[in-house]
């Protein structure tokens, strides 16, 4: 993958406050290191700050104290305009809801991040997108509009989209939260394969204890701290 060091993500002393409705410390001095190829799940009760932590890690939230480093690059203090291309290149996202663009076909949805990155020619990108869809068993549906797919199929397309730029880390916010057990199992297997075969790292926020149990490392949070 893109950087060679063993640690793909590193946060030190991250704290974050919410100011509405009143000042409240959501994250309290968090240190966390994720290694290349590691499949990590982030668990805890509602409101413990696990999603907030993930959005800090995702670089979309820049309002925190502490240090964030991904793929050897220090990201703290950078502006959103610099962080957006970084996300494009290094991070893939899978959410509880698929967030596919409804006017576009499956193939186009998967291609968009790669077209944005502009590293390959259009035909190459198309080829790669089909490869990723094949990996998720969705290659028969490439020309369908995304709203013609079932929930599980849509989530698989979303994963293919997250993979298109070969990111160092894939971040998931309840990636199986909205899926039946068959599709949830399928998503888990895909993630597993990505970490073992492609050496990509995965950070998944989840409520699903079955899912968490089977990951490499479970990080449990409570009251804004990592307790395990």
């Amino acid at each position, binding site marked *: 993958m893109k950087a060679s060091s063993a640690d793909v993500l590193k946060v030190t002393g991250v704290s974050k406050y919410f100011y509405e409705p009143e000042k409240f410390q959501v994250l309290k001095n968090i240190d966390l290191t994720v290694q290349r190829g590691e499949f990590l799940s982030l668990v805890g009760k509602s409101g413990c700050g696990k999603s907030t932590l993930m959005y800090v890690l995702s670089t*979309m939230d820049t309002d925190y104290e502490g240090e964030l480093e991904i793929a050897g690059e220090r990201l703290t203090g950078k502006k959103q305009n610099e962080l957006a291309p970084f996300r494009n*290149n290094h991070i893939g996202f899978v959410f509880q*809801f698929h967030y596919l663009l409804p006017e576009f076909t499956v193939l186009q949805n998967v291609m968009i991040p790669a077209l*944005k990155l*502009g590293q390959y020619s259009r035909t190459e990108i198309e080829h790669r997108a089909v490869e990723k869809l094949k990996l998720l068993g969705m290659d028969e549906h490439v020309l369908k509009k995304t709203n013609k797919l079932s929930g599980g199929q849509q989530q698989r397309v979303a994963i293919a989209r997250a993979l298109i730029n070969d990111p160092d880390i894939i971040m998931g916010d309840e990636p199986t939260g909205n899926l039946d057990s068959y599709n949830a199992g399928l998503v888990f297997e895909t993630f597993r394969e990505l970490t073992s075969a492609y050496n990509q790292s995965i950070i998944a926020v989840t409520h699903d204890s079955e899912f968490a149990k089977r990951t490499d490392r479970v990080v449990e949070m409570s009251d804004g701290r990592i307790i395990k």
Partner: protein
Amino acid sequence: MNSPITAFKLSLEIARVHLVSKPKQTIIAMLGVTFGIGMFVALVSLMTGLNNFTEELTMTSSPDIHIYQDVTEPRLSLLEEINPAGLNKIHHQRPKQESARLRGAMQIVEMLRRDPRVMGAAPFLSSQVFYNNGPVQLNGSIVGVDILEEDKLFDLRSKLKQGRLEDLLASRDGIIIGSGLARKLDVTVGSRVLITTPAGFTRMLKVIGIFQMGMGAIDNVRAYANLAMVQTIMQQNQSFITNINVRLYDRYQAKPMAADLNMNLDYKAEDWETANATFLTGNKIRNIISYSVSITLLIVAGFGIYNILNMTIYNKMKDIAILKAMGFAGGDVRRIFMIQSLTIGFVGSLFGLLVGFTLSYLISKAPFDGGDFVSLDHFPVNFDPLYYLIGTVFGVITTAVAGYMPSRKASKVDPIEILRGQ
């Protein structure tokens, strides 16, 4: 790594898909612009067409500078002349008995013709007369001119309906008569007309031509004759000239030049802008009205675009959030929506030009009776491409302004709020 061309192409493609996937919305937004620009073009074409038409009419019949003896000019009383320092009060001073004659008129004409700004200068004199043909007696005026010089100034040749200008030179008692006057007197070329001056002098004249200026105020009352003939009927000598008309190469030089002449001559020099002040004010007011109506239409169209884009962005919050998560910067998102707005503006404007042209064309074919005052059977419409260009520029600017605010709002969407909110 990320070339700006592919990034732009991607924005363009997303914008295109957004526009095409909601055709009704897109078309309604475009129709707003189309209507605005169409009306702008049609209105301005008609207004400027009318203005140009009337201006041309006025210009063909009025000189750039007109030099004459102004008897209404206030003059010093005898008392004031004798006793300039005193406190003088004179009630009901009568105008002095003064001839309208321009002294040294031919010298003034020679001087004017030497001026490089002057295209032509023509001396003339005119008199009130009654035209009689059998029992019909009409009030009018007869203008004594050097017909070839007059033609240089007012292009009389093209206004001539019957006869030839040169015939006037050959015929001492010939006249070229206005078309309205000819109709009322029921005369044609070759007919004879009896004229009577206010002083009681009568003379039989022969119609050798009929002209039509297109303005009732002239065609219904005026006839042209040789200078010498008018001097004769006014019982004056050959140096009797009452007016000089001047035509310039650049008519906008008239105002400063008239001011100069007023300083140097004892006579009044009046430029066309002063002489036609009411008409020019009318032009200005018509222009102001047509521009303000069109701009109002465009602003309304702009609000339409603002609303539709705002709605689109509200509906696309999730898409915007995911695009930002995937690595689209605020500027990329803004560009996507600006492209949509500008496309609406540009395509809407183009259709607007088409609508504007069609409307202008239909108006120009609509029958319109100018009545006795002007000879006009259709609306005069100006097809100057400049107004089409202005329309397009207006349309695109309006949509850019209307699209900018919603686009900026889209670029500021916080993806976390949307992605977490569900």
